[in-house]
């Protein structure tokens, strides 16, 4: 728990809502619109926090706990990421499993909350989300496996930090593949195009949006903030793999990280404006493709 | 010089026929085909008289193995063209240029395969034979021949691709030395070749060229293709193309034998041979189409060829003799089947009483039945007996027993169909057949099969000295012994 680490975490927490904002802004500009301001999400969060709560009579404690658990698990997961490129606030051997597990916990909480409402739309979204998760999780683990083989360290601080930087010269090819695979995973887990269109109004085509359909007020604020944080966490993953920052000093590494996050957000925006959402049956295919890339990266390490 | 001419003359003629506008829309230039076939045969005959020097830096050379296949090809091609004179009077292919060009290109490609001593050149020739035959299978352009051509192309192309990989493996076996893939070179330095690569090369080349031969389990294209192609094309394929493919297998066996890996190669060859025999025996029963029946018979004989090679000793000589006998006999049978198809529309079990309507063809068919199933006094009996002898010599009595059992089953299966269509009462002509001019068995249509039959019969009693000499030398190159 170094001051640097906590500082980095705090900064990430503050900056997180800007990341989806950058993505949306990029997409708007590329499609010829002016789009909402980059800091729009902050304003939305402020507005939502001041609203009152309304709960449906069919819901139980699970529904109320969902957003809280989701955000809490994301914050704890963030503790394991080495934001300064060297050391995370918390680390132990095998903490990547804990990281994946915490993300899964968050998703699980939201899915349960969705099913708790008893609405068919939410149930539909919940099952879709679970399907995508069942393909995304193995891919994430395959990426981690490739990183472990490359860096030779079993904790996230190691596979995203110093040992990774040392591995780049000779494992560059497989690390690039892992980077691409993680980017596809980012798109999938955060419900961006081509997996899910965040801007759609049609409930039948939604995956993530429809899960949170019944939440309102502060709960929705928690969920929106949580999504932004999750996007940022995945962005940190991708940036750490592609741009090893172990050689830089603390502030410089953080600055590089946030610059990288911005670049990832722009990339997401570009992808959103260039591609269309793929049919739902093709989403597993896409994820398996990412898994195949990660598998190839792993094999390259073994060979 | 002569070797180059043997390959170049048919190739140039093929290109001229395919390209020159004077041939567009005309009938098939049979005279031209005859001239080229005759020239080719004469050149080959001259090779027997005086062996030529290798050409193209040793890439082309006529050694006993190659000479056997080349002669077989040349004789079969000549006979086929003579048959074509009569055949084309009754059935003219839609694209005469493609027909003639394909035949000539096949002759050129087969000559290249027979004479090539650079193994990659052998591969190129082999692929060329596949490609030149494909349009010929497709001549009738109906659904069935289309399906057959597609299956043939896909399976053969994959097989040839694997053979190419095997050739590259052979090159890898040379390690750092990087010499060209010349056969005499490879044989001389065989012991220095890396055994792992050599084994892999042998397997891939066997599977690859075995696909072209029609060895089981890569034989699936054979019944469809032989069944749908015009009979004279099927005859060429069954006699000559299989010989060329067998040559590919034999070449790699030469290298493997010289490298001392015979104990690895022989069981593999025997396994493929027995499998082919088994498959042939199974599918011959209940077969209703004569050409498909002959295709399975071809699978059987390919199995025997490979068995002889695998058994070693006098089996190698038996294989070489069988190559010649089988090639000629298959050509004979397919041409006769072609006569039947011309006369009655299809050579299958719908026919009856052919002995009355087509006496010459029917007789030749029955005689051919006996020849192809290895009955005395035809030449195939002698060659099959030699292979059996090799089995007994090597102490593989159960292999010999399996061969005999398979041969018996095949005889029964084939006889059932052949005798069924030859004997009995011919069906009364119905409908449009009443006024149609019956297909006379003209001299052109019968001369070819008769000639081939005569040769096969002669080979059952007497093998001319030069032939025996060449076959023995070929057998010894394959690691075996003479008779």
């Amino acid at each position, binding site marked *: 728990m170094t001051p640097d680490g906590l500082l980095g975490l705090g900064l990430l927490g503050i900056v997180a809502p800007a990341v989806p904002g950058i993505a949306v802004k990029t997409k708007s500009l590329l499609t010829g619109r002016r789009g909402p301001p980059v800091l729009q999400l902050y304003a939305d969060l402020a507005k939502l926090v001041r609203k009152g709560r309304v709960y449906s009579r069919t819901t139980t404690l699970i529904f109320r706990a969902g957003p809280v658990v989701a955000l809490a698990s994301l914050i704890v997961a963030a503790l394991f990421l080495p934001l300064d490129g060297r050391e995370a606030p918390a680390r132990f051997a095998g903490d990547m499993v804990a990281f994946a597990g915490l993300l899964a916990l968050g998703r699980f909480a939201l899915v349960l909350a969705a099913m708790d409402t008893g609405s068919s739309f939410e149930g539909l979204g919940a099952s879709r989300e679970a399907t995508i998760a069942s393909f995304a999780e193995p891919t994430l683990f395959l990426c981690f496996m490739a990183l472990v083989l490359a860096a030779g360290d079993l904790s996230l601080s190691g596979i995203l930090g110093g040992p990774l930087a040392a591995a780049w010269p000779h494992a560059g090819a497989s690390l690039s593949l892992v980077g691409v695979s993680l980017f596809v995973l980012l798109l999938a887990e955060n419900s961006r195009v081509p997996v899910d269109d965040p801007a759609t109004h049609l409930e039948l085509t939604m995956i993530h949006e429809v899960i949170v359909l019944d939440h309102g007020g502060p709960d929705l604020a928690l969920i929106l903030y949580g999504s932004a944080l999750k996007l940022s966490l995945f962005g940190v993953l991708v940036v750490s793999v592609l741009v090893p920052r172990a050689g830089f000093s603390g502030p410089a590494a953080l600055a590089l990280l946030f610059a990288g996050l911005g670049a990832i957000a722009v990339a997401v925006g570009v992808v959103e404006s260039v591609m269309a959402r793929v049919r739902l049956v093709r989403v597993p295919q896409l994820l398996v493709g990412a898994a195949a890339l990660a598998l190839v990266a792993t094999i390259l390490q073994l060979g | 010089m002569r070797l180059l001419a043997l390959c170049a003359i048919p190739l140039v003629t093929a290109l001229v026929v395919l390209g020159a506008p004077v041939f567009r829309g005309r009938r098939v230039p049979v005279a031209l085909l005859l001239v080229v076939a005759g020239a080719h045969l004469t050149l080959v005959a001259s090779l027997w008289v005086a062996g030529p020097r290798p050409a193209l830096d040793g890439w082309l050379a006529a050694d006993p193995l190659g000479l056997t296949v080349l002669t077989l090809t040349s004789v079969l091609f000549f006979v086929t063209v003579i048959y074509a004179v009569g055949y084309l009077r009754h059935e003219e292919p839609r694209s005469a240029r493609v027909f003639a060009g394909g035949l000539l290109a096949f002759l050129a490609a087969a000559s290249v395969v027979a004479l090539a001593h650079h193994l990659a050149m052998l591969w190129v020739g082999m692929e060329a034979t*596949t490609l030149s035959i*494909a349009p010929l299978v497709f001549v009738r352009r109906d659904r069935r021949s289309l399906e057959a*051509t597609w299956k043939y192309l896909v399976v053969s*192309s*994959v097989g040839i691709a694997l053979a190419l990989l095997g050739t*590259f493996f052979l090159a890898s076996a040379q390690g750092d030395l990087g*010499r060209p893939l010349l056969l005499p070179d490879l044989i001389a330095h065989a012991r220095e070749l890396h055994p792992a690569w050599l084994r892999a090369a042998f397997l891939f080349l066997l599977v690859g060229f075995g696909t072209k031969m029609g060895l089981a389990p890569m034989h699936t294209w054979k019944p469809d293709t032989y069944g749908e192609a015009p009979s004279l094309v099927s005859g060429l394929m069954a006699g000559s193309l299989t010989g060329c493919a067998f040559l590919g297998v034999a070449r790699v066996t030469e290298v493997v034998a010289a490298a001392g890996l015979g104990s690895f190669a022989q069981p593999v060859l025997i396994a493929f041979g027995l499998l082919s025999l088994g498959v042939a025996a199974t599918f011959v029963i209940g077969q209703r189409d004569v050409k498909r029946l002959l295709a399975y018979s071809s699978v059987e004989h390919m199995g025997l060829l490979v068995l002889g090679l695998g058994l070693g000793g006098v089996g190698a000589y038996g294989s070489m003799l069988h190559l010649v006998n089988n090639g000629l006999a298959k050509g004979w049978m397919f041409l006769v089947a072609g006569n039947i198809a011309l006369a009655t529309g299809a050579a299958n079990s719908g026919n009856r009483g052919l002995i009355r309507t087509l006496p010459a063809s029917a007789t030749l068919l029955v005689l051919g039945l006996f020849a192809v199933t290895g009955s005395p006094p035809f030449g195939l009996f002698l060659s099959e007996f030699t292979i059996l002898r090799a089995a007994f010599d090597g102490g593989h009595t159960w292999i010999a027993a399996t061969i005999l059992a398979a041969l018996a089953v095949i005889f029964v299966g084939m006889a059932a169909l052949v005798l069924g269509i030859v004997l009995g009462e011919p069906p009364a002509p119905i409908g449009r057949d009443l006024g149609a001019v019956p297909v006379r068995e003209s001299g052109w249509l019968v001369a070819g099969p008769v000639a081939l039959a005569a040769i096969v019969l002669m080979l059952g009693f007497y093998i001319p000295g030069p032939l025996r000499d060449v076959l023995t030398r070929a057998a010894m190159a394959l690691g075996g012994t003479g008779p």
Partner: protein
Amino acid sequence: MRDAAQVVLLLVVLSDLAILGTSRLSSCIRGLAAQGFLLGLLPVLIAPQLSVHAVSLAVGTVIVKAVALPWFLAWAIREAAVRREVEPIVGFIASQLLGALAVALAFAIASRLPLTAMQQPLLVPVSLATLIIGFIVLTTRRKALVQVVGYLILENGIYLFGLTQTESVPFLIELGVLLDVFVGVFIMGIVVFHINREFDSLDSTRLTELSD
């Protein structure tokens, strides 16, 4: 030059997996063209020194594999008016997983083969992987045109392997191989054209009239 060759070989594997996972025929052909271009770059990248042999092989490969054959296949698609492959015999997801397994298998086999030190270490595994993936496409797809694409991927794998033997397999032979492939695919294209005319579809599972 070694690193550049390594990157190119990796891109070849990626193109294999991409072709394996797509259902649009035009994407298959574009992937094939990209692969052909990458293959054309390789002789120049792995030759110890630039020679006429290497450059002409590279140019020939690019012309045949990246330009002529894809253009011809695109013509065939237009003629047959097919857009998509229907669900193949082995589903797309399973195909991708098989493809990744094929890469694993190829690396495993390659590590057991005795290779000389002077060769590019990734060349043999990538060639074997491409070979196996070509086989997978050839055997599990229904549309005849996609089977031709699979055959071409198979040939690409073999071509890659041939690049390890630059001395024993001379220039003329490589050219002969290229020519053979070209003519072969040309003939296949004609047959596909006729299949489309006769059967009104390119579904090769309809070709079942001949059997015993």
